[in-house]
């Protein structure tokens, strides 16, 4: 279909509201080595509805949608569109069948312009279909009520705008079915509201929207129909009637029960269902600051925002949060504090001493630790065993290495066993290659390493991202506990506002590399933070 196809098909659908298309997934099973991601899942997606696919991380939602979008092929099962069996063997076929997908991680090419990204794979013939594409973009954008500069370089646009372009791209082929995979993880509260409006509009135009999320609130806000996945299985499908039968709390409780199994229904502090905490902290903290950042700036690299003239002070034993949409300088800030990045201006003091020019290793020894969000890429070395990874920041130090440089393997392994026990790391043994561990256990390894040997201050960068609920709770509990008992202060960087409100004493907000404000964790903090996340008092 041509870029203009969607407008035509939309017109056709609106003219006949009774004729709705539907996709049926029947008995879809998809397994990977060691994991059955989808186990005999059947559901129906109809036009004119927002169908939410809800489940915690690892439940199999993304896998199911990858099957629908042609990236994976199911091991068994059938897919029918309008009662006709179809084979979706490639992304190209999915597009031909009218299925457009917005993936969780951007599939736009940052160095290319918007129009180039949209023309990719579109043209038939030699020359790029520039004229028709520009016209089509114009029509599509105005029908969706969004503004787009076709010649803007994609990587320089705000994340919310980039997502809009991804939606445009998904609809470019005249799709009837739009899949959105965790679309709100990168958005501000306002951006989420705008997305909600767009979805309502698309629904009105007769499209089917599949909305994948692990956030219960979003599913309840937007979904006409909610299908719940747990450990690869479809445990419930709640239609519009069931979603209206009862108060919001009742339905929430019911859904949580279904998401986690009845025996876990009393997990009262699951992030999703908790309302804002009322002045949970109010702890008595020593006023002596343990970490002071003054006027710190970090040069941005390709695709980054950098950090500009940031000042913060964290007290001993305090948990300071850093809120903000991903990509506003969090990584740069964390790395600057850890010593992995060169600071272009300003200075950092730790326990009163300047550490601006100290190496990573020195800062480690002083008790300044960094739990990175990039577990596989940076946090561990996959080809090295678990035990060595646990002492990776103590290479050459006693008692693990003797003064000649020779390694003391038994000592390392003994220490490793203790840490595996304490942090509940699931691994066959301490000599297993670290790369074979699951995401949750990798995070535990990183935590075990950073929190051992007398930490005084820890920078946590998205420590619970992508983890299942049990591990998430354990991590938060540990952060709280060591802060209260051992006065281990923390800078908790997170894109999950619920998490910050759950754990932190104060919360700073990072926007475009600047701190737009610091908020005490009191009632009303959430609104204040939301305001600061989009630029604050401008």
């Amino acid at each position, binding site marked *: 279909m041509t870029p203009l196809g969607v407008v035509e098909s939309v017109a056709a659908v609106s003219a006949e509201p009774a004729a709705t298309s539907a996709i049926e997934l029947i008995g879809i099973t998809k397994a990977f*080595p*060691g*994991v*059955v*991601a989808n*186990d005999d899942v059947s559901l129906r997606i109809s036009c004119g509805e927002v169908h939410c696919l809800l489940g915690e991380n*690892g*439940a*199999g939602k993304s896998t199911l949608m990858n099957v629908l979008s042609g990236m994976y092929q199911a091991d068994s099962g059938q897919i029918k569109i309008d009662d006709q069996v179809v084979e979706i063997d490639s992304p190209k076929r999915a597009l031909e069948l009218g299925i457009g997908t917005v993936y969780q991680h951007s599939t736009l090419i940052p160095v290319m312009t918007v129009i180039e990204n949209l023309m990719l794979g579109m043209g038939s013939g030699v020359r790029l279909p520039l004229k028709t594409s520009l016209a089509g973009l114009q029509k599509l954008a105005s029908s969706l009520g969004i503004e787009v500069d076709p010649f803007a370089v994609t990587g320089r646009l705000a994340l919310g705008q980039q997502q809009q372009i991804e939606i445009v791209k998904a609809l470019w082929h005249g799709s009837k079915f739009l899949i959105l995979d965790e679309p709100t993880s990168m958005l501000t509260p306002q951006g989420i509201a705008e997305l909600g409006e767009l979805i309502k509009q698309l629904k009105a135009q007769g499209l089917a929207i599949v909305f994948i999320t692990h956030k219960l609130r979003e599913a309840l806000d937007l979904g006409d129909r909610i299908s719940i996945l747990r*450990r*690869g299985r479809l445990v419930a499908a709640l239609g519009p009637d069931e979603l209206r039968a009862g108060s919001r709390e009742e339905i929430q409780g019911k859904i949580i029960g279904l998401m986690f199994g009845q025996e876990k229904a009393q997990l009262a502090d699951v992030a999703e269902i908790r309302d804002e905490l009322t002045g949970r902290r109010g702890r008595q903290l020593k006023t002596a600051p343990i970490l002071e950042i003054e006027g710190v700036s970090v040069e941005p*690299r*390709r695709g980054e925002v950098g950090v500009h003239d940031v000042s913060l002070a964290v007290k001993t034993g305090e948990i300071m949060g850093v809120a903000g949409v991903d990509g506003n300088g969090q990584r740069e800030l964390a790395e600057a504090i*850890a*010593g*992995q990045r*060169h600071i272009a201006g300003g200075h950092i003091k730790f326990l009163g001493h300047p550490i601006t020019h100290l*190496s*990573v*290793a*020195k*800062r*480690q020894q002083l008790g300044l630790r*960094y739990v*990175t969000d*990039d577990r596989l*890429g*940076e*946090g*561990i*070395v*996959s*080809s*090295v*065993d678990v035990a*060595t990874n646990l002492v*990776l*920041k103590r*290479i*050459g130090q006693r008692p693990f*290495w003797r003064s*000649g*440089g*020779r*390694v003391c393997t038994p000592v390392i392994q003994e220490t490793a066993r203790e840490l595996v026990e304490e942090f509940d790391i*699931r*691994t*066959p*043994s301490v*000599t*297993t*290659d670290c790369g*074979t*561990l*699951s*995401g*949750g*256990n990798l995070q535990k390894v990183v935590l075990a390493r950073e929190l051992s040997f007398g930490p005084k201050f820890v920078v946590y960068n998205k420590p619970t991202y992508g983890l*299942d609920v049990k591990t998430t709770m354990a991590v938060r509990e540990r952060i709280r506990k060591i802060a209260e008992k051992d006065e281990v202060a923390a800078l908790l960087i997170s894109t999950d506002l619920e998490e910050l409100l759950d754990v932190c004493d104060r919360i700073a907000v990072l926007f475009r590399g600047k701190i737009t404000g610091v908020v005490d964790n009191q009632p009303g903090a959430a609104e204040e933070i939301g305001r600061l996340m989009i630029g604050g008092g401008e």
Partner: protein
Amino acid sequence: MAEVLEISEPEAVRREAVARRGFLNRMRRGGGVLGQALVPIVLAMIVTGLILAIMGKNPFTFYDQMFSSGLFNWQGFEQTIIRMAPLLLMGAGLIVAFTAGIWNIGGDGQFLMAVAIVCGIGPSLMSAVPRALGLIILLVVSFVVGGLWTLLPAFLKARYALNEIITSLMMAFIGISLADLLIKGPFRTHLNTVPQTNVIPFQKLLPAIPGTNIHIGILLALVVVGVIYWAMTRTGFGLRMRVLGANPRAAVHSGISVFKMTMVGFFLSGALIGLAGGTEILGVWGYVRADWNPGWGFVMFAIVFLARLNMLACIPIVGFLAVVQLGGHTAAQNVGVPDDFILLFVALILLFMAVTDLLRTGRLFGRKPKEIVSVVTTAGRLEATDD
């Protein structure tokens, strides 16, 4: 139904069974490497044999000649052992580099520069100082010269993340030409008209192992290989190098000084290769002629991959290469094919090795393929872009 998010039990158990514990297991692993190396070698031999047949030569005669003159003949065997000395040192140098994630392609330049300097100052030095002292000094000189020749590519990589494949290769070409210039110029002998250096007399070269014609360079090489192996596997320094090579970003994150490790690793690599040059001159030749370039750098490249970067497995494989080179040279002459035929054989080994490794694991020795950040890149950038 298996637990979502946990590792699969059978996989974990299998990996546990291959745990790196105990001498016996290590030996078994080394043996495993050799077994795997055998397949590409055999395949290469078959294809090379076919090519010979197409050319009208008898492959069996060729291989028979190759092994009998290289291995089963005492003089040939001695020559093979002698050849192993510089090759082992070069192998150690390359393995050190690769362990740290450094692609030192410029080995030939480092080798020849060391050779040129040793031949330049050697004759006069050896006539001025006692033999043992002179030999030690010259070996150290070859070590240092080889290391120094890596400094520019090393610095560019360490400081600017400039791709070292290109820079070390350029330095190799420069080094080869510069060595020639030196040999034809300041180091040239006045005793005859052949463009060569003065000669260190035979009795002043490295002594032979008693009862043989094999010079002690091989012992030096074996000791060095052992030391390097120990350092890479049992010390903090070795672990830092391994981490740097396996995951440079994790190295930064762990507080390893990437700059220092890169410079040291590169230097050590070049130094070992330079030492190989010194050993070959001081053990076999005593002088060097202009335009001499055995070109072992590239070939050893293939060999260390075949040995899967395992220093111990390198020893028998280098032995095999020595047989191929020396025995192959004789066999090629007798059968009537050009010497460069050996190049073909080695190339086939490399390609077959890539295929067999791919078929087994889908990856080349479990390493992620090297991500090229760029030849020219932003200052201080260390991590590869990921996709």
